[in-house]
Every structure is written in C-alpha cells, then in structure tokens.
C-alpha cells in the first residue's frame, strides 16, 4: 500500500505570486511544511479542499513550472531550537543569513538548503541527569555555555516524558549529537540531542501564568516614570513615518534589563538591519562587559524579501523567545513593524480571494493579533524556573491615522500604548512619545515594586509630574487662543515648569553618552529637583513675587540642562542643586 501511495506524485497546478496550488491531493495536512518545485522552495499549506490544496511559498516563485513536484514534510512549519541561536541573524523562517551569504553571495538566491543552526560547531556540554531519572516535558537535562553571558539549557520537548536509560559523558558535542536516551511509557526510546523542533504557530506550554508586577527597566525617562511596562507585558508603539518608532525600538533593545533580546525586522529597511548589526556588535553591555550581540538574536525579513516569510517571521521570533523563557530568562522581543506583518496577511488573503473586512484586511486580523500578543507573559515554567516574554510591537498606521484597523486592534490587545507624535518629532523632541495620548495599564500595578526598590517618593513624584503635564495641556488650549501673556503668574509657572519637564526630563538624547540611559535613581532625583523648584516658586508667587524675577535667576534653564551636567554616577550633585535652588530663591525674598 505504502509504495503505491508514494507513486501518486503531487505536482504544481497553478501559480499566482507566492500562492501555489496542487490539484487532487489528499496527502497534505493543514499548516504542513512543504518543499515546492525542483529547487525545493519552502512553503506551508494554508488551505485544503477536496480538489485543491493551497500553499504559500516563502520564496520568489518566478520561473516555477506547473508540473514540478511538491513534497510534504509531514510536520507543521517548525523552527530548530538549540545552542547557536544567539549572536546570529536569521531570515523569517530561521535560515541563517550569514551562511546564505557564504552560499550565494550578496544577493539571496532561492532554495537555499542551509540548516538553521551550525552543525559543525562543538559545544561544551555538562549533563545534569543520571540513568534512572524520570523526566517530563520541559525538564533540563544538560547545559552548555552558548555565549560568555548566556548558559543554554537543553530541555525535554514538552509533551514527552520517560525514564533516562542512557546518559553520555560530559564533553564536546555537535548540536545534533545524542546526549541522553529516554524511554517513554510505551517503551519507545527517544534520542535527545542538544536541539529540538517546535511548530512556530503553537505557543510553548507553561505551568502557570503569573501577574506582572516587575517593571522592565528601560532607562528611558518618559517610559520608566510616566508609561512603565512590566516584564511579561505588551506594548504598542504606533507612529507615522519619521516619528522615531525604529529609534525607540533600538533604544529599548540596547538598554532594557531583559536577559535576552530578540529583534524582529519584519518588512522593514535593509540598511536599518545592517545598522542594528553594526551597532549591536560595537555596543558593550555595561553589566557584562561583553558585546550586546552575545544576548541578541536578529530576525531580518526586510521589505523586499518574500512576503510569506514576513508573515512567518513574527511567529519565528516569538517561538525563540518562549524557548529562552523556558530556560528561566527574561526575554524582550521587539517587532518592527507589526503593520508590515498585517499587510503580509492582507496580501496573502487577497491572493486567496478571501472576502475582505476593513480596509482590505482579512476578518481574522484581530484574532491573529491577539494570539500573538497573548504569547507574552510572566510565567512559572514546566521545569520550575521563572521567566518572561515582553512584546514591544511597532505599528505603522497608514496615513498616520490611528483609527486604522491595525492600530485599533493592537490597542485592544496591548496594555501599553506609546503613541508617537508628529509635531514632537518635527521639533526633534525624541523620544516623541505623546504623554497625553499614551497610556500604560501597568502604571498602578507596578507601584509596589517602585516603592520597595526606588523609594516611596518616586511614586509620589511621578504622580505630581503627571499632574503638572495634564494641567499644562489644558492651559495650552487657552494659550493657543490668546497667548501666554494674559495668564496669571501661578499658571505661567505651571507652563514654565512643564517646559522644564518636557525639555529637561521627557526629551532624552540617544546620542549623548550620559543621557542615552538614565538609572532610576537619577530619574527620581531629577523629578525631585523640578518639583522642588516648582514648589518654592509657587510659594514666592503667592507671596507676590513676579514670575519674571524667578525666571531671571536662570534656575529653570539650569534644570533643563541637568540631564547633561550631572553624570549618572554622581547623584550627590543633586543635593548641591537643591541647596542652590533654596539659596537663590531665598535671596529673592530678602530683596
């Protein structure tokens, strides 16, 4: 029977862009990975009827003939998980771009059959189990140093359990070498190597999800103080072109306190990816003294690379993130940009002639978005470790209009919304996060952590700062109509203080050595100074001192520049500043 079945070869029937159809086949399963054509282009089954099987191809289809063979692989679209992922750059379906370059040169050729992980490299493996141990899914049986800063842990694939019947000695192994043999309940022996496969569209299971109560520290003032994000949280960064989405993502990737960064360049610019590559390898992580790339994975599916692989790249990224989470790491994944991914969905949906919903996007866009963002979280893993996946997704609204479907649906499923603002970007106020339009649902969730680790006053300050900014935005409505001159002095003070907050605090210079990352303690002290000046000035004004003479002291301008003038490692200088504020202002009174 079996030989008979093999004779029925599946061949290409129709071709339309990245969509290929096969007629009269019953051998494929939904979401199965297939090889298309003589060049064995990678594809995935996306639709089956009794007459027609529809396949999306992850590579250019130019030059394919009807009648070329289509072979199933029997398993869904999967990625290989094992040591060698870090410090690497992959395309959307986990093919290493460096090896592709060696194989086909500077331009990507089709049908590259390089394996995802380097199979020739030897890893120094330490075995952690002994014969007779009972292992269940997720349990760690071996580890090896993957990079100088990250230890890779080999885990039993979820779903598999059994008794260890053979353990190989510690030593050097290739990624595909068997190091443990496991006998399951039915008596079948499973050879465990350093790597495993996992289907990209299936979330890796966890023991339980935890509440998100620990912030992801980013060193960016506007985020850490006004719009914080939790480890295991989700954030969306919407913004029109030129508002600095990518710059903000880069800053977060460089400075946030996650153990591992996964940066997905999804349908974005090639030059940007080469910038990330060169910057990250030059950038030394202050905590470990090693290059950033030691804890980074890049997934680059630039806008001109095949659109179906762009759709897959987001899932590839999140699967890698979950894998490292299972080892007990805190992982942050930056997806730049989810709109390009949504457009890939739309493009393929159009080729399938599906009935479009809003703006031509398929009706399943919201469910796909929620499936993706729900894979974030702080979790207890199957093996008892604790880790998190934080998702930060950029959104590129068409026509800079936040009411378009991708932005709106993303807003429903993320808990931080960092809206980038055109007018701030035009004034080169970066990060151009608009503090009135943006919100963070973690703001109060994280209060307890901040109180315990940075001090109770930090939380108090940030409510005060927020209050001044809100008050200013209301006053600005009036100022726009009649000018600032007619306001009473106490309201002018609000505007002046808000200016210091905007220019001196919220605006942050990514190219300034001190200002690019600011520790929480300094953020707190900066807020303290601004609020101190505000409080003292308000007292003087209520005593009848005109605001012009307070402004004339130059204290406001001094505070605007304190972000540059006070180094990150000299918080004691703030006390001098406080003294100066007190002295100068008391001098005004004696006058």
């Amino acid at each position: 029977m079996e030989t008979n079945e093999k004779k029925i070869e599946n061949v290409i029937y129709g071709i339309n862009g990245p969509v290929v159809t096969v007629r009269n086949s019953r051998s494929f399963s939904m979401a199965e990975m297939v090889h298309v054509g003589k060049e064995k282009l990678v594809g995935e089954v996306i639709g089956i009827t009794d007459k027609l099987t529809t396949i999306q191809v992850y590579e250019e289809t130019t030059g394919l003939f009807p009648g070329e063979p289509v072979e199933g692989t029997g398993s869904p679209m999967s990625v290989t998980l094992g040591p060698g992922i870090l410090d690497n750059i992959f395309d959307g379906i986990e093919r290493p771009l460096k090896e592709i370059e060696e194989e086909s040169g500077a331009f990507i050729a089709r049908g590259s059959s390089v394996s995802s992980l380097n199979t020739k490299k030897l890893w120094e493996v330490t075995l952690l189990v002994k014969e007779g141990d009972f292992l269940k899914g997720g349990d760690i049986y071996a580890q090896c140093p993957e990079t100088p800063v990250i230890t890779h842990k080999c885990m039993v694939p979820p779903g598999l359990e059994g008794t260890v019947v053979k353990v190989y000695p510690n030593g050097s192994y290739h990624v595909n070498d068997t190091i443990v043999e496991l006998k399951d309940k039915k008596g079948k022996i499973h050879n465990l190597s350093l790597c495993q496969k996992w289907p990209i569209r299936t979330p890796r299971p966890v023991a339980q999800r935890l509440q998100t109560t620990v912030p992801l520290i980013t060193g960016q003032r506007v985020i850490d103080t006004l719009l914080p994000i939790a480890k295991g949280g989700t954030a969306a960064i919407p913004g029109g072109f030129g508002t600095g989405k990518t710059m903000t993502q880069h800053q977060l990737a460089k400075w946030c306190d996650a153990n591992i960064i996964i940066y997905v360049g999804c349908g974005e610019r090639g030059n940007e990816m080469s910038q990330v590559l060169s910057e990250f390898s030059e950038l030394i992580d202050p905590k470990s003294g090693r290059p950033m790339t030691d804890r980074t994975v890049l997934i680059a599916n630039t806008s001109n690379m095949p659109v179906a692989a762009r759709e897959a790249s987001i899932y590839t990224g999140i699967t890698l993130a979950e894998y490292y989470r299972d080892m007990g790491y805190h992982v942050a994944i930056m997806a730049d940009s989810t709109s390009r991914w949504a457009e890939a969905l739309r493009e393929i949906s159009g080729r399938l002639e599906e009935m479009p919903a809003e703006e031509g996007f398929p009706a399943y866009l919201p469910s796909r978005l929620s499936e993706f963002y729900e894979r974030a979280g702080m979790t207890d893993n199957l093996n008892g470790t604790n880790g998190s996946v934080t998702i930060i997704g950029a959104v590129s609204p068409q026509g800079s209009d936040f009411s378009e479907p991708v932005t709106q649906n993303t807003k429903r499923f993320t808990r931080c919304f960092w809206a980038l603002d055109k007018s701030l970007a035009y004034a080169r106020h970066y990060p151009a996060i608009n503090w009135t339009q943006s919100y963070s649902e973690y703001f109060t969730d994280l209060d307890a952590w901040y109180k315990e680790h940075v001090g109770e006053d930090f939380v108090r300050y940030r409510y005060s700062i927020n209050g001044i900014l809100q008050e200013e935005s209301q006053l600005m409505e009036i100022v726009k109509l009649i000018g600032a001159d007619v306001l009473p002095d106490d309201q002018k003070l609000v505007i002046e203080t808000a200016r210091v907050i905007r220019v001196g605090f919220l605006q942050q210079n990514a190219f300034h050595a001190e200002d690019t990352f600011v520790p929480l303690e300094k953020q707190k002290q900066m807020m303290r100074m601004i609020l101190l000046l505000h409080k003292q000035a308000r007292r003087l004004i209520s005593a009848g001192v005109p605001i012009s003479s307070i402004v004339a002291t130059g204290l406001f301008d001094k505070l605007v520049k304190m972000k540059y003038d006070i180094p990150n490692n000299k918080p004691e200088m703030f006390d001098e500043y406080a003294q100066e504020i007190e002295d100068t202002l008391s001098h005004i009174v004696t006058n």
Partner: protein
Amino acid sequence: MLIDYIGVKEINGSLIVLDDVEDASFEEMVEIRLDDGSIRQGRVVQIDGKRVVIQVFEGTRGISLNNTRTRLKGHPMELALSPEILGRVFDGSGRPIDGLGDIYPVRRADINGSPINPVSRIYPRNYINTGISSIDTLMTLIRGQKLPIFSGSGMKHNELAVQIARQARISDDGGDNFCIVFAAMGAKNDVAEYFRRSFDESGVLQRVVMFLNLSNDPIIERILTPRCALTAAEYLAFELNMHVLVIMTDMTSYAEALREFSSSKGEIPGRKGYPGYLYSDLAALYERAGMIEGHTGSVTQIPILTMPNDDVTHPVPDLTGYITEGQIVLDRTMDNSGIYPPVSVLPSLSRLMKDGIGKGFTREDHADLSNQLFAAYAQVMDARSLASVIGEEELSPVDKQYMEFGRLFEQKFISQGFTENRTIQESLDLGWELLTALPREQLDRVDDATLDAYYEPAKKRVASKTVQNSTAGEEKEG
C-alpha cells in the same frame, strides 16, 4: 522546442488568456506576433493548470481572438548589460530608442533582481554634498540612501533633482566614478526633455543612462521601467564599481499603472483601489539602493513623487515614507511665495544622517546645529499660528524674535539660487549666524561648550557685518 500558440481565449484590459499551454513558467516572457507583422511583448502573470494569463506590455489594442501567434521565450524578463549602456537612451522596457543600435550584451540580468542579504549590506555612512543648504545641513543625503522628494504638480521638484544631480559631490572622490540612471515613468515629454537638456548642459550626458516611459507610452510597460533602471544601476554599481545616483520620476504614475494592472486582473483592492501588495512592490524597488560588502560602488536613489492633491497621507507617499530612509517634502505655500527650493523643513528628514555627519565627516557641531534649527523653526510655527490669532504686535518679545528668525531662515537659509553651490562649511556657519537672532538661553538643544565655540563667534561675525553694512550705507548716502 518552440511552439506558437495561435489565437487567444480571452482578452481583458491589458491581459490575454491562453488555454492548453504546456510548460509555461511563472513570470516567463512571451512574444506575441500579430497578423500585421508587429511584435508585442508580454509576461506570464498567473498559471492555472494549462490556462495561462499574460500581461501585454504594449496593450491589447488590435488583438482579436484569432489574429495572434504567441511564443514562450523560456526565461524571465532580462536586460542586456554592458559598459556601453552609459550615455544611451532606452524605452520603458529597456530597448534602445536613440537610433544607435542594439547593445552587445556582456551579460543579461533578470530585471526583478534578488533581495540583498541584510548581512552583506554595508551601513551607509559617507555623505553626499549637494551644495544645497537645507538638504546638506538638515537632511543630509548619504551614499547608498533612498531619499524621495515628495512634491505636487507644478512645484519645482524637477529643478531640485537636476540641481542635486549636477552639484552632488562625494567627499572623498574625484567625481569621475559617478553616473546617473534616470527613469521616467509616465513623465511628460517636456519633463524628459528638460532632464536630457540639463544633463547635456552640465556635460554629464555621457554618464547618464535614460529609461523613458513617457505619459503617452503603454501603461503596463511602466511597471518594468524602474526595474530596468535599477538593474542597470546595480550592474554599474556592483560590477563596474561606480557611484550611481538613480532619479525616478514619477512614482505616483508607476503606482497608478500597478493599480490598473491589478484591477484588470480582478484582484481585491486595498486602500484607494491600490492593490494590497503595493507596499511590498514599492519596497522591492526602493530596497535596491545600498552598498554591499566587497564592492566599492553604491546605488543612491532619489525617487520623485507628486502627491495627489498635496496629500501626504495618500497611499503612495505614505507607503514610500515607510520604506525610504527619510523624505524631502516640498511646500506649496513656500513655492508660491517664491522660495526656491521650497523645502518644507519640519516634515523632511534623513534617517541616515546621524551617522554620516559630525566629526570626521562634516563638522563636529553639525548634529547640534541641525537639532537646534529644527527646534527653533518648530517654535516659529507656534509663534506664527499664535500671531494669526492675536496679531503679531501682541506677541511676547521672545516670540517676536522667533518670528524674525523664521523670516531670515526662510529667506537666507532655505532659499538659494538654482546655480548656487554652497559648501557645507558655508551652510553651517550661515545656520549659526541666523541663530544669533535668538537669545542664547533659548538654544536648549546645544551644550555650553558648543555654544561658546560657534554661537559666540557667529554673533561677532553678524555684528561686524551689520557695522560694515551700515557704514557702507552711510557712505552711499554721504
């Protein structure tokens, strides 16, 4: 095995459908011979078993169900390449139209190209000096960048493109390794002629390759024009190691051609009727700019697009802005008030400039100065909108200074002659001099050391100039 397929099954817009075709491959070229002896070219765009849909570049006018013989060429659309293409003029699908005969090809290349491996790219860092203050100082063009001009009908984008092409100098290069690829998609005959004449006058015509699909040429051919141009550019840059500047005008016409093609294929339309894959399609063109490891050449793109109704949120400028590394936006009000080039500073941007300017490239104060100019000009806009409500007289003294700065900035800095070629030093110094119209404490984007080094000397220069001017004036009067 060459088979002629006689007749067609269906004709729809620019598409014809053949039945019972053996061995057609996707995107293969076809040749269609009509009974009257004329030959048209086409491309396979869809295959369903033996039913093949072909796009005819020259249009289907005159084709009936039985007056054609169609032959499959067995390869995708290719362009003949050799160093001889420099100085030649081609039509939109790459056939010579200057009467100098066919190109004897060194090799042929698929016009669709292949994506550049992101790993193989060199991050572009060297700036191109265009001699235009607003561009050099505020949105510096970098070698290997794609920087479009967002314009509208009737504005001076062509002049600006010509001025850039004429004045562009690469800092560390003698200039003899520089060439221009010009692609006209649906451009008016006058526009193409204007470019040709301008290249001729500046003596660079021998270094220009032109691909012309004029507005009365077949629309479907327009889809091929930028692909041919970029294939030629890649050949010149990555095989002959030249620095290539690609000027493509007008991308909006290109996108419209794509829309027409898509709708005749019966595809589901996205925004404003443009196909859902417009982003990917535009990206496949724009991403062909860059520099790659192991080659000294570069492809720099300046696509020009006219925004319908000057609307920057229209799908074409919108998607372009998301792909390209910045944009130069032209402004109709400034154009009307006679400012050339009418560069609207605030929405314009060069994403790559931050790493291509400063010490070792232009001058150490460049980044600070441009930040400050942007910030100050944004303030000018606020002051102007306030002044339009309460009148300029009622403004605070600081706002009045901003108004004055705004006027000077537009008249002296942005505005410059069509043949005026300013060095980067001149532009930067001029920027500082204009900033002296503002009090020092308003300059909050710059640290004190830089202010001491540049703001104060500029102040002295301005002061001495005013003295000279006033004494000169007195002498005249005297």
